[in-house]
């Protein structure tokens, strides 16, 4: 908050830098959409994390012939 009312200190105020063509309703829509989207993604990510923790660490693959482990397609 210390930088208020400046966007660029001493040159441009936040009031001057508001986009003239963007309506308040547009900003409310995008803010709501992103909040819901990231909230939902955070909930899913948290749930997945809990599932992975509960499943425990995978058993380490054995490479008896000393071969280098090969990368696997991730999807």
């Amino acid at each position: 908050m210390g930088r208020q009312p400046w966007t660029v200190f001493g040159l441009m105020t936040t009031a001057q830098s508001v986009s003239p063509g963007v309506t308040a309703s547009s900003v409310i829509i995008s803010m709501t959409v992103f909040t819901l989207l990231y909230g939902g993604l955070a909930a899913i990510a948290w749930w997945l994390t809990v599932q992975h923790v509960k499943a425990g660490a995978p058993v380490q693959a054995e490479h008896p012939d000393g071969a280098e482990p090969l990368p696997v397609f991730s999807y």
Partner: protein
Amino acid sequence: MNLATFWFILIAILFTGYFVLEGFDFGVGILMAALSRDETDRRVMINTIGPVWDGNEVWPITAGGAMFAAFPLWYASLFSGFYLPLLIILVALIVRGVCFEFRGKVDSVRWRANWDRALFAGSALPALLWGVAFANIVRGVPLNAAHVYTGNLLTLLNWYGLLGGLVTLSLFTLHGAIFLSLRTTGELRDRARRAALRIAVAAVPLAAAFLLATQVSHGRPGTDVTAALAAVALLGAVAAAFRGREGWAFAGTALTLALAVATLFGDLWPNVLPSSTSATFSLTVTNASSAHYTLVVMSWVALVFTPLVLAYQGWTYWVFRKRLTSSDIPAARPQAPTPPPVTELEPAGPGGGRP
């Protein structure tokens, strides 16, 4: 050629790279449900773009960044004016990216089916909306004397904008089908090739109508040539797909997209965002550009880093150049407790080059 024109061309090249590369990513996402017969098919299809889709999405970010730095007024009017369409594109791209990452995380048919539906929507929506956006940029949008957009979301949904949207949607789907036929084997490859020919039935007339409408209203002699070449490249791509020459077909659709972008930007110049309210309110390469010194600094930075970026992106494609088969897909889910034996993962043996 002054530096502002140089940056206009560079932004056109960045969007060309985006549509050529992300175009087939969108196509794969759109076609995944239609062309797959089982879960292995779907994973093969996702893995054809797996190593590259996120890199491809850096192109529009770079293009937007270049617009912001080289033409701040263009960036301001466009991103404020197209606020809600760009929001939809951004949300779709976020959901799409998450689909790739999350669909394999839970071993459940319903879980994956839901993400696959989201992947379809997240691929089809931006494929449509990029065309709507670019058609409207060329057509011109209502801008007032301060270059502020005075229309709304529905202003952009005119017949020309929607036609442009259908063109990118159908061209990207065609591009994706040809990419899949180039990157897979067996039945999936055959299905992708047949799908490409069916999509071409819609894509070719749509693209021809759009290019014709564009050139009638906004054309100039130079872009008449690129538009005609785009049509030739598209027909050549379809002919090559018909004959099973997938590499040539892919080069053809890539060239079609590049020439189409060249046509649109060529028609746009010297404007960057024409005003349909009054031609004197249009944003041009001259009145929208940054100061000369800014452009000089940017040009040096771009000259140093663009070859580097192109080199590592090209290298990624070179590493992942082989066709994928169902045997490349490990049977177990990624989070399964015991990974399958190494021999099942790598049937190609030494020197196979398959990552």
